């Protein structure tokens, strides 16, 4: 069963994305109970295999192949160009079409960047260091003024500003009444860009690495990607090899940031389920819109994240006790936190796949007719936007299994990473395995939760 499911999942994973599903009718007709059981079984089998398999197998996974490419030196120019593009799109956000599916700002921010680029960053490689819209402008400002940073970044702040930024971003995404409204989004994106540019001017590039949530997020996900650097050369390896190369998070703040990525992503799915509507005492079939659940979603977001952090800390602590280890809890949390990144990335892909397949079509439509003059540069023809795949059993099954595949693969990689990280942290294999038992249980439970989210009826 396990081999078959993995084969199906991998086949689907490699195949083209076919469709989206906001109206979930056909998902509820799928035998999702069986699929969920198979997915959880995959993760359980991974845990058991890791106990049995020789150590060398995991070590082999952490070794990249070095490619003989050297990095280019035009990065700041690309960044500056991206900044100019962003400013242009923000201006169109203010003055362009009011329909979020016609205005380039919400399409760029939510579909291209948040859904698309974050996924590419996590799977392929660190694109963000090229397109980061602050590094180039900061470099040029420095060159023009001939001055370096005005202040030293306060070490005591650590990752606190980035954590605040991430929670603020997640709140805007999940609890704001209208995060896609073009002028509203223009104000938020424009304001944030300016504020962070100010931070870079004041504190230098360290600001981006510690305080700017998007860069910290993108760099965290880049650790999961297959492309990275070894000694100035580009290298390619199994997803997560860079996590093993970097080791754990250097500071507890970064570890917490990584856990927040998972907690926020999970709540992003949870807050759409009938279950959540039930908790709020609302009828999902006559939901009166996001403006009625702003405070509830904020409370839910914060509670979900606190719960996740607590469970992770407790699991890690119990693992240390089981292994009779004298390693501090903080060190162990820092060591294991990056292992949740593949789960968070898997959720991200699964949660947004259907939106991407629908809203991505609006991006193509915009590219085909960028000035809304009736052009059809991409030869897409009339009525090119469709959601038929959400209402047809075959495509709905393929999409669901692809989403489930992302969740399951994310957990499998997470378990392998946690195991490999534990092997480095502890002296003996026995201690490493024992220390992982609670986290492995947690991840098996989380697999079930993630797949349940995908199979649950949703209100929006």
């Amino acid at each position, binding site marked *: 069963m396990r081999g078959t499911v993995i084969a199906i999942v991998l086949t689907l994973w490699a195949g083209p994305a076919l469709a989206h599903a906001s109206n979930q009718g056909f998902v509820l*007709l799928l035998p999702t109970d069986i699929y969920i059981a198979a997915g959880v079984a995959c993760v359980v089998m991974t845990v058991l295999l890791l106990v049995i398999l020789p150590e060398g197998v995991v070590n082999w996974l952490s070794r990249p192949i070095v490619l003989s490419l050297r990095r280019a030196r035009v990065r700041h120019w690309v960044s500056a160009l991206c900044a100019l593009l962003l400013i242009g799109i923000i201006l169109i956000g203010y003055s362009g079409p009011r*329909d979020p599916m016609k205005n380039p700002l919400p399409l760029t921010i939510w579909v291209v960047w948040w859904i698309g680029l974050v996924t590419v960053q996590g799977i392929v490689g660190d694109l963000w260091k090229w397109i980061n819209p602050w590094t180039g402008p900061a470099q040029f400002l420095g060159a023009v003024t001939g001055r370096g940073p005005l202040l030293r970044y306060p070490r005591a702040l650590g990752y606190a500003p980035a954590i605040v930024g991430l929670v603020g971003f997640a709140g805007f995404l999940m609890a704001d009444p*209208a995060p896609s409204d073009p002028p509203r989004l223009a104000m938020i994106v424009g304001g944030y860009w300016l504020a962070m540019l100010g931070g870079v001017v004041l504190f230098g590039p360290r600001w981006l690495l510690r305080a700017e949530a998007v860069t910290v997020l993108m760099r965290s996900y880049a650790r999961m990607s297959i492309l990275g650097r070894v000694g100035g050369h580009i290298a390619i390896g199994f997803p997560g090899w860079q996590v093993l190369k970097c080791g754990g998070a250097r500071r507890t703040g970064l570890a917490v940031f990584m856990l927040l990525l998972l907690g926020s992503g999970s709540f992003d799915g949870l807050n759409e389920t009938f279950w959540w509507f039930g908790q709020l005492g609302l009828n999902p079939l*006559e*939901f009166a819109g996001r403006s009625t659940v702003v405070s509830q979603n904020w409370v839910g977001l914060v509670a979900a994240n606190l719960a996740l952090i607590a469970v992770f800390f407790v699991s890690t602590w119990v693992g240390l006790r089981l292994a009779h280890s004298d390693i501090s809890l903080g060190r162990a949390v820092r060591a294991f936190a990056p292992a949740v990144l593949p789960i968070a990335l898997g959720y991200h892909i699964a949660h947004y796949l259907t939106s991407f397949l629908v809203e991505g079509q609006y991006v193509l439509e915009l590219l085909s007719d960028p000035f809304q003059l009736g052009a059809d540069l991409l030869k897409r023809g009339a009525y090119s936007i469709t*959601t*038929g795949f959400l209402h047809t059993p075959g495509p709905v099954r393929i999409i669901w299994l692809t989403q489930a595949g992302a969740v399951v693969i994310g957990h499998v990689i997470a378990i392998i990473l946690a195991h490999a990280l534990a092997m480095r942290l502890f002296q003996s294999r026995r201690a490493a395995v024992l220390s992982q038992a609670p986290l492995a249980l947690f991840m098996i439970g989380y697999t079930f939760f993630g797949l349940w989210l995908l199979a649950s009826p949703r209100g929006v």
Partner: protein
Amino acid sequence: MTINPKTPAKSPKGLSRRSALTGLAAGVGAAASLPMWARYTHAQTAAPIKVGFQIHRTGIGAAYGRWYGRTTDAAVKVINDAGGINGRMVEVIAEDDGTDPRRGAEVLEKFANQHGCDVAYGTLFSHVVIGSAPRAAELKMPYFVVSEGHHVASGVLNRYTLQPGITDVKSQVQAMAPYVAENLGKKVTMIFPDFAFGHDHRDFFTAAIEAQGGEVLAQIAIPPAETSFTKYFPKIPRETEVVYHVMVGPAVLTFVKELGEFFGPSAPKMFGFIDSLEAVDIGSPGLEFLEGTYFWEGMCRDAQSDQSEHAAFYRAAVGVDDHGASISDPTDVSTYGHMFGCWETMHVIKAGMEASGYAGPDDRTKLIEAVEAMGEMPESQAHPQGAKVFNGKTHQVFGHQNISRVENGRLVKVHRTSIEDTLYPDEVDYTTQPF
């Protein structure tokens, strides 16, 4: 969703106050002395008529919103290709309301204060209509809704809110009763979601079937968040001749499948509203049980043998094939039963503006009075679903309804009601309310 008018609009910001006033004074004086046609020839160069489209782009109405948008685009294209309204092009300003009543009201304010819209239009979901209508009255903005709700005719809204392009649920439901009683059976069990939408069906149909000498044996209310229904089916009395069902939401396909499994081949007659299965191909695997069952349809999804030339024109204009799906993707089934309401409402706005000589926001009350006075609307390109009668007092239009039977995965019309079947006594007279 912004439709670019063929005639470029001159930005009001480009005019100085003095030149605008001078021009206005001269224009008013000159226009008053001109015949009607000449005024509008002159207006060819004027700014477009701005229709604020309150679109459900996100939220629970998004699936409908896409098709309402497409129908609106098609209607505006046809109107603009034929010269626009009073010689002015129509420009649609679409704002997402998030299917959220509070945002709906904010969107109306943007239409009035930021975009300078002439009218607001297009809302489907009842709670957004009810949340927005009071603001429309405060802003003195004519608000043309396409929601099917009985709230307009029930009198809870106001003189600025009109529903001239789609019939309301009360008239639809009561018009079904004669056919159901005569052809399907008089002993009915109703299964409906346990909230306002379902309660409307329960109340309206129970009264209507009793008026036909029938009776409702059981009313089975299903909690809205329910996703498994087998435990409710044993409550269906054995002597039931007709099951009337109006389930909506993601679990509706599960409902149909489980109903089929429960009854097997010896099912009573089934009657439902297409609302349950809008945008879903009736012939999909898993829905075989629907074969031979009956549905209300506002407009027939599958092209019928007697489809009028106007209906065919409309079908082509919105890019839908003979099976109700997009011509670019046969799996992309439209919300055909309802979306004609956008087309017809847009044409009512056009007819109302032409009848009232609408020239700008100062003529909004004249526009409302003109629509109130419309009365009969013959079947035409503007009314491809069929002839209608607008009740100026209740601000609600009345029209023919269709009952279709599923045959080989297609919806085949078996009955078309008269307009008289859909009428009920007035519950309000908005014309007595001052503007």
